[in-house]
């Protein structure tokens, strides 16, 4: 019980940290990496709330597909935000 509460709090705080870093980062590739980190903490949260079906879709889409799509898009424009 206590361990799961700690896990929930730490994962949600970490996700907040990753979101902050992704928004303020000027290097877009690093921002994509932070966004993937945020998705990983969200999937930890979902697993802690025992929803394995959603975790599988969420990990595949938000860590894999979404990041890969953004990297493809960044390769067509500039890497650094001005």
């Amino acid at each position, binding site marked *: 019980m206590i361990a799961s*509460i700690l896990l929930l709090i730490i994962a949600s705080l970490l996700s907040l940290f990753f979101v902050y870093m992704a928004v303020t980062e000027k290097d877009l590739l690093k921002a994509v990496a932070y966004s993937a980190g945020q998705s990983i903490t969200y999937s930890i949260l979902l697993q802690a709330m025992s929803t394995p*079906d959603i975790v599988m*879709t969420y990990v595949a889409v938000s860590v*894999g597909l979404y990041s890969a799509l953004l990297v493809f898009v960044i390769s*067509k424009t500039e890497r650094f935000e001005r």
Partner: protein
Amino acid sequence: MSRRILVLMLLFSATLIVSFTATIILNPATPSELKELAKYYVLNTINETASPEAVTAIVWDYRGLDTIYETLVLYLAIVGGLAIFKMSEEALLKTRIGLTLLTKTSTKIIALLITSIAAAIAFHGHLSPGGGFPGGSAVAVASMIIIPVFAAGTLIEKGISSTKLVAIRGAALTALGLVALLPVVRGLEIVTNQKFYPASILGLPISGSLSLYNLLESLAVASGFTAVALYLSIPEEAYKGGSSA
């Protein structure tokens, strides 16, 4: 930079301590019994759909029509995305040089691992957590790491063109529609499961139409996302020459 992170760390540890002690002191009561709706699904899913997995049963049986419309929406989104890109496979053939041998070999191993896990997710979807969409998108992740490493031109040379992928997607979705429509022939409702399809074949539990839906959906999702990735990997220079055509 470092001061900003220090402030964040302080804020986070303060929040952690406050929220943890608040949860321990207030001690929110966890519900001791299920709601009526949850009880219904827990007790009846295995008899009504021949599947122990309530989520897949709800997605493809109880609310099957919703999921089929959702699949159609994704299909239209991918068709719209592909319509924006100009179809020119000659441009893709120019990009034939991939990354180094080391990267290629490790990518082969990783892609094989991802694909086997994806197959487990998709084909066990009616027995354990998972299903067609997660399995298909996991396959798409594998193809999305293969495309930049081996270069899109190499894939097209081997015969994996986006036209073929879109054709696979169309065929899979047509088959999915047929699976949903077939019970109507016997006068049953659309997306009927247990009254029309068998619960197991040769002792293998297939949960009626649920495993068919999962298989076809994973094929459709994987080929659709792979086609989009192939088009996205066309370099910008390839567009510049052919604007007059």
